[in-house]
């Protein structure tokens, strides 16, 4: 054994963090517990300027078209040029099933449509403002959690956050907000702002077997590079495409027609980076969703989109 000496430096790290950091609460943690950059995050899609600084290439459809015309590669545009900008026709089947769940009558002849309208007209646009604070549940909730409670209380149905009817109805409801500009008010003092800040801290917190944070893959220098065959991108804007059609990849046991809600995506990311997966709809996972959704503020919802497509320009 030629490993001669082994030192543990953790306490040293704590001292360093205390010595160099400011007096904010976050600095009570050793610096090894967070990836850098959380103080740069703002609740708007343009916040990407402080990270990959590619926002000008994908801020709207025209910008993406112009960047492509100018010969920018997918990697140079932070891989934002295809997911949000392209609609998925393959997802129509899943949307149709979601609509059926929305209209599925219980024994008393009631369905979601009984209150929310045959084509969900009363839910148009709401997805762009979720997660939102629920006065009834006294916490910030995702649409999925809202569906679960609504189905349970009004219809007597057991539609858990990660159940097939919930996820597909969620997808259908999201499609009713296609084109709506996302607005999560994370600047006014209140539960949403608090959720945003907690979610941001979780996003930058190191965890799991590999000691990765969400930020390990979704901030520079990782973004715009190739992570094996994957194309890591910043956390700005992408929430606008969720729930997303994720064919051909799904987790073992999934029965959602390849639809991934943002909650399911976060869980999938956890497993892939060897972090114990959180429960979908849990307060912590909801906070992460608030952070991601608010990081798409000012961006238009784009549903149904596709996680993977046949666009292989990025290989160039």
């Amino acid at each position, binding site marked *: *054994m*030629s*490993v*001669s*000496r*082994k*030192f*543990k*430096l*953790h*306490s*040293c*790290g704590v001292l360093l963090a205390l010595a160099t950091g400011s007096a904010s609460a976050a600095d009570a*943690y*050793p*610096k*090894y*517990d967070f*990836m*850098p950059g959380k103080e740069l995050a703002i609740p708007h899609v343009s916040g990407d300027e402080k990270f990959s600084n590619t926002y000008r290439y994908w801020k709207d459809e025209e910008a993406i078209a112009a960047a492509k015309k100018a010969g920018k590669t997918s990697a140079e545009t932070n891989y934002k040029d295809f997911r949000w900008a392209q609609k998925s026709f393959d997802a129509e089947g899943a949307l149709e099933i979601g609509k059926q769940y929305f209209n599925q009558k219980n024994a008393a002849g009631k369905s979601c449509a009984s209150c929310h309208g045959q084509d969900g007209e009363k839910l148009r646009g709401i997805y762009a403002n979720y997660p939102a604070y629920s006065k009834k549940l006294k916490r910030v909730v995702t649409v999925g959690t809202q569906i679960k409670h609504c189905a349970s209380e009004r219809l007597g149905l057991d539609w858990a956050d990660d159940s097939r009817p919930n996820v597909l109805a969620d997808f259908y409801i999201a499609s009713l907000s296609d084109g709506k500009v996302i607005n999560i008010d994370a600047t006014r003092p209140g539960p949403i702002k608090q959720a945003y800040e907690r979610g941001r801290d*979780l996003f930058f*917190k*190191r*965890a*799991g*077997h*590999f*000691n*990765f944070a969400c930020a*390990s*893959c979704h901030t520079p*220098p*990782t973004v715009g*590079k*190739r*992570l*094996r065959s994957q194309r*890591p991108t910043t956390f700005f804007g992408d929430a606008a495409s969720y729930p997303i059609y994720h064919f051909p990849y799904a987790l073992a046991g999934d029965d959602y027609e390849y639809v991934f809600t943002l909650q399911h995506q976060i869980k999938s990311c*956890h*497993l892939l980076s*060897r*972090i*114990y*997966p*959180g*429960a979908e709809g*849990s*307060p*912590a*996972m909801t906070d*992460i969703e608030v952070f991601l959704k608010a990081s798409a503020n000012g961006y238009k919802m784009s549903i149904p989109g596709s996680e993977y497509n046949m666009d292989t320009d990025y290989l160039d």
Partner: protein
Amino acid sequence: MSHLTKLRYLSMLTLATAGAVGTVAVSFAEEPLKWVPGEVYPAELLKNFPCLDYTLACGKMKSPPVERIEFSGPLEGDAVRGEKIATNLRWGNCIACHVLPTQDGGTIGPTLKGYGAREMPLDYTYQRIWDIRFYNPNAHMPVYGPNKALTDQDVRDVMAYIYSSK
């Protein structure tokens, strides 16, 4: 962090006979849950590392202490085994971020093609793989040693593999 075995309350045998006071016997059956490198990491075991939750115990865990290891060689590594570790998604998975001596890979970390020709000190390379935070606390690289993702021998084998590339 050391709970690598899962205690399962197999049965609670209540022996109650007519007219007698019931006796309760609890039997513990030890069923070691182990990660086999190259296979999926058991989700249950991930609870031994920090997680993103407010109620689970792992939600309050911190990153492991930084470990400085002084490595003076000799290397004594197996380059063939090292390549397996470096390319396996469920083991070292170096290929995700690095171009490897014999394979194309990710572009996040520096290429490891021709690593041997760079004549990096063994101690430096060992430390970077074992716990990169010693050199850079903000590195986007797994903490292989302290979290037991790679053993001492695994690190030597991976080193033998990349040093063989001139």
